């Protein structure tokens, strides 16, 4: 019987609450801000979690007063009309024309009050994540009114992480209180310094000019510590960005390191091979969208071999059709391949149109994760790993396979290689195909972060050449080091000089570097006077 009663009371309580809070909610529709704030305070005092949606709607400007009966409702704008739901029960109330409703406006003061009461209400949520974010919200709002709530929440809290956040929030509120004793202030400063981050910095920096010397000293020390930490975090973030940019550059340049570095062919159409890889991804995704939407997450893996084959095949065609007639005439090769790049660009533009193509991200490429203060997106992480994998695979191919051996033999001494029975023409075609195919692979990766348009490749060609020369022609490790270090330097310069100026500085830097070391970072040793 008791249990039944208990169950009954559990069932009834929300109803009681709803009956009690209903008129309070309607009071939010009052005419002036002061009255609304009073209504808000009254609502907060009910301690009723059911009002959370209403408060959130109020904050987002989605709470309306129905002119016909002064009832306060939540509304979703849908064109001319507004779909209404009950703020407490969430029950649908049909749609109404916008003219029959009046939006309940909030000012900044009211918004702060809403934040505070939302924070207070959610502090007791059974969900630890909700409590955590509530504690963070209180930390930001620093509303002294929530202090008693915070204390009770702190006493009841079991989760260590949430408890720490609650303590930090309490410390933040306490610090705002001028009457606080020095010792309490010091311990509060210690707690907040432990939290770190921009918000803690904003809290502590006014205290550095405190009249109490101990407090001022502790605050100064804490500020210095946090700033230090923040600077490191920013640097780490920039290095991560730089590695990410570097891996993109590596992907774009590594195919060129084969055709230009190993074979010595100036392939100005290299960027277009990247572009073809990106368009292959687009076509694969279109086919998957039309015929097998379930495979979408696999689209990139399916596109990889296809892009390699498409770009590599076209590369072999180019080698057989044009470049083989121009061996030993590098400047003519440069011009002919530039012409090819124009033709390929225009061909793609004629087929697919000049606009950017929509290439989607599979689910595993979306999102980000946090390491300390540093955010890393999954897309960037995969591209970085992919760049390293392609590099490793290429190294293995060149070092550990018969084809790689033949390639190195032909590039080192063509006539001797031919004398040993290597079909040099075939090796030339395959090497060029390999370099182009790798460019195609790069295109699949770049389609995820860049606009897929006919001009995609143009943006990478100069950078790629610079990296290959910077790293040292004919040296794949040089390309790796060159790409990653240029990426990092670029991103470290960006906050100092701005994105464009940073890039210009890097370009000028490489131009000057090449004057000092014409053979690049890791020059191949040799005695040839002409290169």
């Amino acid at each position, binding site marked *: 019987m008791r249990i039944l009663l208990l169950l009954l009371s559990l069932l009834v309580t929300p109803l009681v609450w709803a009956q009690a809070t209903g008129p309070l909610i309607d009071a939010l529709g009052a005419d002036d801000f002061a009255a609304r704030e009073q209504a808000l305070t009254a609502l907060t005092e009910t301690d009723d979690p059911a009002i959370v949606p209403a408060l959130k709607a109020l904050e987002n400007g989605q709470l309306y007063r129905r002119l016909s009966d002064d009832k306060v409702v939540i509304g979703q704008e849908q064109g001319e009309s507004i779909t209404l739901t009950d703020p407490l029960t969430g029950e649908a109330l049909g749609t109404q024309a916008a003219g029959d409703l009046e939006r309940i406006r909030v000012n900044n003061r009211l918004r702060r009050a809403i934040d505070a009461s939302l924070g207070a209400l959610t502090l007791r949520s059974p969900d630890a994540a909700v409590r955590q974010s509530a504690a963070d919200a209180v930390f930001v709002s620093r509303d002294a009114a929530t202090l008693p709530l915070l204390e009770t929440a702190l006493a009841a809290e079991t989760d260590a992480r949430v408890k720490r956040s609650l303590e930090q929030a309490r410390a933040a509120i306490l610090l705002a209180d001028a009457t606080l004793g020095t010792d309490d202030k010091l311990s509060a400063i210690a707690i907040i310094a432990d939290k770190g981050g921009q918000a803690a910095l904003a809290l502590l920096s006014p205290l550095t000019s405190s009249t109490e010397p101990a407090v001022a000293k502790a605050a100064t020390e804490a500020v210095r510590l946090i700033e230090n930490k923040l600077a490191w975090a920013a640097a780490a973030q920039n290095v991560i960005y730089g590695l990410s940019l570097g891996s993109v550059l590596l992907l774009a340049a590594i195919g060129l390191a084969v055709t230009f570095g190993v074979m010595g062919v100036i392939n100005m159409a290299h960027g277009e091979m990247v572009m073809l890889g990106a368009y292959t991804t687009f076509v694969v995704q279109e086919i998957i969208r039309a015929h097998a939407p379930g495979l979408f997450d696999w689209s990139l893996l399916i596109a990889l071999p296809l892009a390699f084959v498409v770009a590599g095949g076209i590369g072999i065609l180019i080698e057989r059709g044009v470049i083989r007639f121009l061996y030993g005439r590098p400047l003519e090769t440069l011009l*002919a391949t530039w012409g090819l790049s124009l033709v390929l660009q225009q061909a793609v533009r004629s087929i697919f149109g000049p606009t950017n193509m929509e290439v989607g991200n599979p689910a595993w490429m979306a999102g980000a994760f946090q390491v300390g203060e540093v955010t890393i997106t999954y897309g960037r992480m995969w591209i970085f790993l992919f760049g390293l994998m392609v590099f490793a695979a290429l190294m293995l191919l060149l070092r550990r396979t018969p084809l790689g051996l033949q390639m190195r033999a032909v590039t080192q001494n063509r006539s001797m290689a031919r004398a040993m029975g290597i079909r040099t023409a075939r090796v030339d075609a395959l090497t060029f195909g390999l370099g182009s195919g790798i460019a195609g692979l790069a295109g699949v990766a770049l389609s995820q972060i860049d606009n897929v348009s006919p001009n995609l490749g143009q943006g990478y060609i100069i950078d790629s050449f*610079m990296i290959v020369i910077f790293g040292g022609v004919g040296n794949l490790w040089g390309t790796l080091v060159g790409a990653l270090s240029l990426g990092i330097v670029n991103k470290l310069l960006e906050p100092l000089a701005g994105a464009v100026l940073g890039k210009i500085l890097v370009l000028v830097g490489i131009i000057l570097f090449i004057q*000092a070391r014409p053979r690049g970072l890791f020059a191949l040793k040799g005695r040839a006077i002409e290169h």
Partner: protein
Amino acid sequence: MQGGILLPRLDRAGLIFGAVALGLAILIPILNLIVPTDSAFHVPPHVVALMGKYLCYALLALSVDLVWGYCGILSLGHGAFFALGGYAMGMYLMRQIGPRGMYGHPTLPDFMVFLNWQELPWYWLGFDQFWFAAIMVLLAPGLLAGLLGWLAFRSRVTGVYLSIITQAMTFALLLAFFRNDMGFGGNNGLTDFKDILGAPLQADGTRSALFAASAIALAFGFILCRWIVRSKLGRVLVAIRDAESRTRFLGYRVEQYKLLVFVTSACMAGVAGALYVPQVGIINPGEFSPANSIEAVIWVAVGGRGTLIGSVIGAVLVNFGKTLLTNALPEIWLFALGGLFIAVTLFLPRGIVGLWTGYWAKRREKQAASIATQPVTEGS
């Protein structure tokens, strides 16, 4: 080398060229200004401007040919020198607008008013004087070429490496000039010019005068190049092109020769740009794009590298084709240009002029052979 046989023929052609250019400088303005509009011989003003543009391109091509054809320096950054000359002229033309701009500021160009700049940046000072702008037209590209060349030639950066460096240079300048805080009008560049040396730019007389100036500049450029390549200096340049190390071992200071010809060529490109800007009425960072520089190289390749006259023919022909094609079938143009690059390098390594001289050389060889065979048969 066939050069010994061909030089007299080309030389005559060269002199004829100078005369033709000067003749054009007189004839076209007459046909435009004096011949009545309804006459069949009347040249409409837009054609005068178009032809003036071609002549500026021809001068640019000539400058590329001087370094590439005779010294083996394939510069993929000559467009930058062209654009720098253009910007110097553009700055003069901007200052000439004076208070007639949209915002009516007495000295500041419109874009600076728009950016809320209070006074003219120091590097804009002096550009209200034509003589100063004219010096800068030569000095700006010359200094850049001198700096880059001095660095590159001294450390023996040659061939493809030099090409890629020059390309990176023009790319860096492209990025730089796109920035608004550079003070060169950002991506809109400099435009809305009103007059040059007091003469309104839109007037037919001014257009004709600019055309004549372009023709005369081209003629002078041509004569200068002929003089260089026929002098002892020119012989050394060709030697450097064909065997750089050997020339160095013979005791020539290769880098100084290269630097001299590179700077001369850059100044010529600057003059071409300076004449180009008032005729098209705008200069923007797009002129720095690497594609423009490579296009100038292909004009030279089409006409015939290392022939001077060929670069002029190539520039005019390719640009004429471009005008026709981009009007009639715009999407075909890039196919045509790309195909031209491939076809010329594969099948016409010596260009149109090479075809022509090759034909004459073969004919003469045949004649010589037929004469030579007779005594042999008699003697045996």
